[in-house]
């Protein structure tokens, strides 16, 4: 039976207001809550639903990141993944390097379906899935809001600028998830206990033979320019007057 590989990224939690360090060398991460990238959580939920419907025999969660990423992988196991793989890495791993690492895991695990979020909410790059599909020489179905499997094929509805687009891809393939694909389940306490016994393997980058040296150099972090303080109006006629004065109506 087929396996599903879900790629997870550890990111600053969705609800944290991210601030740039005063010296412009990065963003403040000390004591900040970390979570699974929300889009990747949707990817995992989809994988679990596919397995529960009999479409796969095993769900593997994999991540590249610092050792603390074990927390997010344990959360993935508590949600229902069968086992986890951590590729420890400190510092930035660019999307192309991440895709090369995941390709190595694919070569070993031979999944039929690879799922991940359409973007990570930290770097907002939105590249890894497409790059992985290219390196693997397999189809990609990005921004998925519906995935229907049938035999060796998948029919995927994608959220595009003009509305919805449906494509058909042969498996194996890479899918990246959009917001409306599903609503991830909550983790229950007994599942957290069970997850502690599930296997979490570590694979060293060195053993995979992938060069993860950064190609790009980030020279500066700046806060976004602030918008100047606006005015409050009392009623609709004042509102219209203010907009006419600004010349936008």
């Amino acid at each position: 039976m087929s396996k599903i590989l879900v790629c997870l990224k550890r990111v600053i939690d969705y609800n944290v207001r991210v601030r740039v360090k005063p010296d412009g060398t990065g963003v403040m991460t000390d004591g900040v809550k970390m979570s699974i990238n929300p889009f990747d959580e949707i990817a995992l939920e989809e994988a679990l639903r596919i397995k529960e419907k009999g479409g796969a025999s095993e769900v593997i969660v994999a991540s590249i990141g610092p050792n603390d990423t074990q927390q997010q992988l344990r959360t993935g196991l508590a949600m229902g993944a069968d086992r986890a793989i951590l590729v420890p890495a400190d510092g930035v791993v660019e999307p192309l390097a991440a895709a090369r690492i995941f390709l190595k895991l694919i070569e070993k695990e031979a999944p039929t379906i690879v799922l991940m979020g359409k973007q990570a909410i930290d770097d907002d790059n939105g590249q890894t899935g497409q790059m992985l599909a290219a390196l693997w020489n397999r189809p990609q179905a990005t921004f998925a809001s519906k995935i229907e499997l049938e035999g060796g094929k998948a029919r995927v509805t994608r959220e595009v600028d003009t509305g919805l687009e449906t494509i058909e891809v042969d498996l194996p393939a890479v899918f990246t998830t959009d917001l409306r694909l599903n609503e991830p389940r909550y983790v229950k306490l007994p599942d957290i206990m069970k997850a502690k016994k599930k296997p979490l393997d570590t694979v060293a980058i060195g053993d995979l033979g992938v060069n993860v040296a950064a190609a790009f150099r980030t020279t500066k972090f700046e806060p976004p320019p602030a918008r100047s303080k606006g005015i409050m109006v009392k009623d609709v006629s004042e509102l219209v007057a203010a907009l006419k004065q600004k010349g936008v109506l």
Partner: protein
Amino acid sequence: MTKILIIGEHSGGKLNQSTAKCVSAAATIAGAQIDIALFATDASAAATQAAALKGVNKVIKVENPANAEPLAAVIAPQVAELAAGYTHVFGPSTTFGKDLTPRVAALLGVGQISDIMAAESSHRFRRPIYAGNAIVTVEAPQDQKVVVTIRVASFQPAPAGGSASIESATVSAALPTHTRFVSRSAAQSGRPDLQTATRVVSGGRAMGSSDNFKILEKLADKIGAAVGASRAAVDSGYAPNELQVGQTGKIIAPELYMAFGISGAIQHLTGIKDARTIVAVNKDSEAPIFEVADVGLVGDLFTVVPELEKIL
């Protein structure tokens, strides 16, 4: 010399404005030669429009029945082959470009800089991260091709006035058949396109239902605006996905953005930051949307919207 290949976006014989914005972005790099590639069954109409953009050197038509639909897996190897004579490849950060460009970069064996808002030089760019909470300056290595996507809200479309040559090219790359187009559905509203509209009227969770969105649509039609929505409104089923404005939806830069019943989550604000004037109407005077609004009104949208529609 900087030679930039822009992946042109088009549908139904019409060039998407995102392409003209890519040209503007490319033109900010001094001395750049700017070519546009168009992939289609018949690219002639879009090619004529692309050739008329100011600053364009050459338009390359790659016509093939396999290019009837913009499938990334099919188009990427063709772009990668054409890229051989170029130092840069630019794609738009629309869903078309976001889908395709990283696949091109990987085939070229290089990384990508996504969503650039400015080019400081041929190899140094500025882009937002963390939903726009930080702006980074990124330098690409000199000894590799530079692949970027252009944040369309950050650039004005290139004006007309060009007279580029139009050529046809054939590519030898093997095109996969593992990915097939099935269908596309889009509501035809007759309103301006959300991404290029000068005015946008937008609703949030407080709209309460898709039926209630009709009052916004009436107001939009009155002032020639596009209709947008917050993620909360789309998730609740009040508005279709293509109307979503924000970090994971559309990033827009209209002259006027009117937010009704939108609280102003940071992920939404990142999508409207470049709007010239932001209007917020919300019952909750503490709503974060008021922190970025140029004009704020604390009030019930269900009385404000009809009143506005009547006055305007």
